[in-house]
């Protein structure tokens, strides 16, 4: 019995020591009062410090929409920016613009976990890919008509499979973006796509005016989620990585909506928020129930109970395009 308890203690300690923690980043702009050409308030990439303040990293940049990280080394970040795709090899402190004049106003970036060095960017005029850590790029959107692409995701479970959210719907590829075809049932003007961290065949998509859509077959076909009516723009989707049946959706008008039954029903969680114009939401993977929300030109808000109660959490006057959780680099 003694030795069994020692074994249990050892196992628990090992598990605790090896539990992955994450660094929190956000991409956003202090937009209140800013017009192009004027002095830009702090904008671009921020990281949450141990003091729970947002530390501005590197340059001021008015249009940073997304980031992803290199699965081999999470200190390497790829940023989707107005000036192009930006690479940082030191967790955001220094930047290098990877792309050239023929790429602009990036909407999203996705690193391929199956192919080291491969990444994809969503553009106003399609999709581009690099297979050499961003040194060279080629457009790879054959089959996508009306090229405006808002979001792109690599299926973490099926190699070669990606989904792109575009003006005309969700497009799917099974050959690493060489060819795309339109997924059945998805509406137009996709704003976000996310893959469930619990059930890899399950995906959700947010739209500009058609509500929320779900796929249970790896993104091949889509059906509307009746619990959220069409109309207002939905901007982001967040699965709770610690609670398999919990997810959050946010938008302009609905504010923050929480489901605890995998999307069968949604409940507004806006009490304590100054408005229901919400740009992004995300669950912290390390803290059960911790939810971040960006309220339009107000601030970042944080809840420790999945939106039941909110408190102001910096970034005054901002629009946050997304919250991102990057694993701390292991020694």
């Amino acid at each position, binding site marked *: 019995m003694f030795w069994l308890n020692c074994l249990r203690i050892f196992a628990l300690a090992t598990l605790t020591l090896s539990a992955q923690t994450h660094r929190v980043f956000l991409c956003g702009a202090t937009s209140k009062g800013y017009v192009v*050409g004027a002095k830009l308030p702090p904008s671009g990439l921020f990281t949450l410090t141990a003091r729970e303040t947002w530390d501005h990293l590197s*340059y001021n940049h008015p249009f940073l929409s997304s980031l992803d990280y290199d699965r081999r080394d999470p200190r390497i970040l790829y940023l989707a920016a107005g000036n192009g795709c930006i690479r940082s090899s030191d967790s955001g402190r*220094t930047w290098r613009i990877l792309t050239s*004049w023929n790429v602009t106003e990036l909407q999203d970036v996705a690193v391929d976990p199956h192919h080291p060095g491969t990444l994809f960017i969503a553009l106003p005029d399609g999709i581009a890919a690099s297979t050499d850590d961003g040194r060279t790029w080629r457009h790879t959107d054959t089959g996508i008509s009306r090229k405006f692409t808002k979001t792109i995701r690599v299926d973490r479970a099926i190699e070669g499979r990606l989904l792109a959210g575009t003006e005309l719907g969700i497009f799917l590829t099974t050959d690493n973006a060489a060819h795309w075809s339109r997924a059945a049932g998805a509406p137009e003007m996709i704003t976000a796509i996310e893959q469930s961290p619990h059930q890899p065949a399950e995906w959700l998509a947010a739209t500009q005016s058609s509500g929320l859509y779900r796929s249970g077959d790896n993104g091949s076909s889509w059906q509307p989620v009746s619990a959220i009516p069409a109309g207002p723009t939905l901007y982001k989707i967040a699965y709770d990585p610690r609670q398999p049946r919990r997810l959050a959706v946010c938008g302009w008008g609905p504010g923050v909506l929480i489901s605890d039954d995998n999307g069968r029903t949604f409940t507004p969680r806006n009490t304590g928020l100054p408005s229901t114009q919400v740009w992004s939401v995300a669950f912290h993977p390390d803290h059960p129930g911790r939810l971040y929300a960006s309220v339009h030109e107000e601030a970042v808000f944080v809840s420790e109970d999945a939106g039941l109660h909110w408190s102001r959490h910096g970034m005054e006057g901002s629009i946050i395009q997304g919250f991102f959780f990057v694993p701390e680099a292991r020694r």
Partner: protein
Amino acid sequence: MNLLFTALLLLAPASAQTAFPERIRKVIETNAALPNGSYQTIAAKLYLHRDPQWCSRRLEELLESPSGDMFWMFPVTAVAYLDRGQLTPSARNALRQSWKTYMPFRGDTENHWLMYYVSLYLMSQLYPDQPGDTWYTGKSSSENFREAEEYLLHWMKLTTTIGQGEYDCTHYIGVYLLPLSYLAAWSEDPKMRLRAQRMLDWIIADYAIENLDGIYIGAHARTDDIQVLEKWNGVSSDFGWLLFGLGYPLPGFSYYALFYSVASAYQPPEVIRQIATDRSRPYLHRELKRTRNRWRFTDVRNAPVYKTTYMHHDYAVGSDQGGILQPIQQHSWDVTWALDDPRGKRNTIFSMHPYSSTYELQMYFTAMPDFVTEAVVRSKKTYDSPDKFLGGSPYEQILQDQDTVIALYDIPPGTRFPHINGFFPDNLTHFEEHPSGWIFAQGGNAFIAYRPLAPYEWKPVPGGGRRLLSPHLHNGTILQAASASEFPDFEAFRRAILALPLHFQLDPVPGVRFRSLRGHDLRFTYGQPRDFSQWKLFDSPYLQSAPGGRLLTVTHGNDHYTIDLRELLP
């Protein structure tokens, strides 16, 4: 002696008779004397080799807090090239360091990118062989240079094959001319200098043929709330005066004119000056341009824009085909008349549909719908106003035949602003609302007949003039202009117009049959197919260029000049 010369220049009126070098000098001297300590003053002083200590000190102060993105890049680039050993090592170092520590946003318009890449090209040239960690891009000098050069060649080729996207801008013409002036002066590559000179010729010729005593007339990709009514009051007038001695510049000159002047101060060939100034014979001019990049709601990235301009000594009538060709600041058609001194005067008449929609904004911008209108209104304050006179509309279609315009409107129910606006200034010599439905007016020496096709009322316009407000979804305007010199008197003009056969209907769609004053039988129905297949990049007695050609032939009398970029652009 230098001080006396300066004082005389500053005190002397900006006479049209001043020679080109003197006009250049006046612009520079005026800016050198400005008290505000801006980059333009530094540049002017460095050009004149004055106060280098002050320039260095002030430059370092300004560089402590850089801002303005591409609008910061080009002044600092000029200062860098005008340095010529005058700046202190500390100031020079601060300038160089700022290109590492400050990341300018590249922007989202054609003019932004030209400023951005010309600046990056020249700064990479000035500081060659430097590694990526010395530049905000993270790229080396050679990488920056190569990227900038590629873009510049791409832009030049696009402009000279399918037309400029941000064409004929009353304000942003300055932002096209000054970077090209920079390249023409400071590029170490003789081919790039030559390219820049030819592009200057191209863009200046484009302006020259569509100016009336220095006023930029006709349809514009972009103008603004002031210059759409007060046609003189903008940057283009600076360049009309600077390049050709025409009209009147802005008080104190725009800083675009300054930066143009301290770089190459390029003077266009005499034949272009003749085209700019000779209004002895009326002419018809057509142009092919392109829209700004369309990101959504269309399969065509850059749709064609078909412009028509009729130029007379006393007035000009110009138009595009209608539609949303540019976001927010498009101006589609008007008649503008010449005045001895147009400063402070509104000398134009036109109609338009005040369209405001996230559809337009999401077509041309990558923004999402909920905030985009508010974001636009923060800088373009009249965008979402029913009273505005600026902007294009998907519900407007325009036909121009010489100095006759027919503009038709088919506005769907539920449209945000379901009416059209017409503008009439308050300084018309004659103004009469005739029982026939025609409105007769005289501006300068231009006789104007304006026929609204639907009932209307008048509203005052702040700053002077009146707005013709016609709240009818099916609508239209017919405009016929003529010179006072064609008729014994205004009454004769009125009789001539009233005698012209006119038939129109508004339902089910607006349509007009009208015999113009020039004897042309015009038929135009909203939505009818139109044949623009023969449209050229430039087509007039003075300018000729075929699409795809990279070649523009300039002719005036026996003088010929060819702007040839075929060998210079890959």
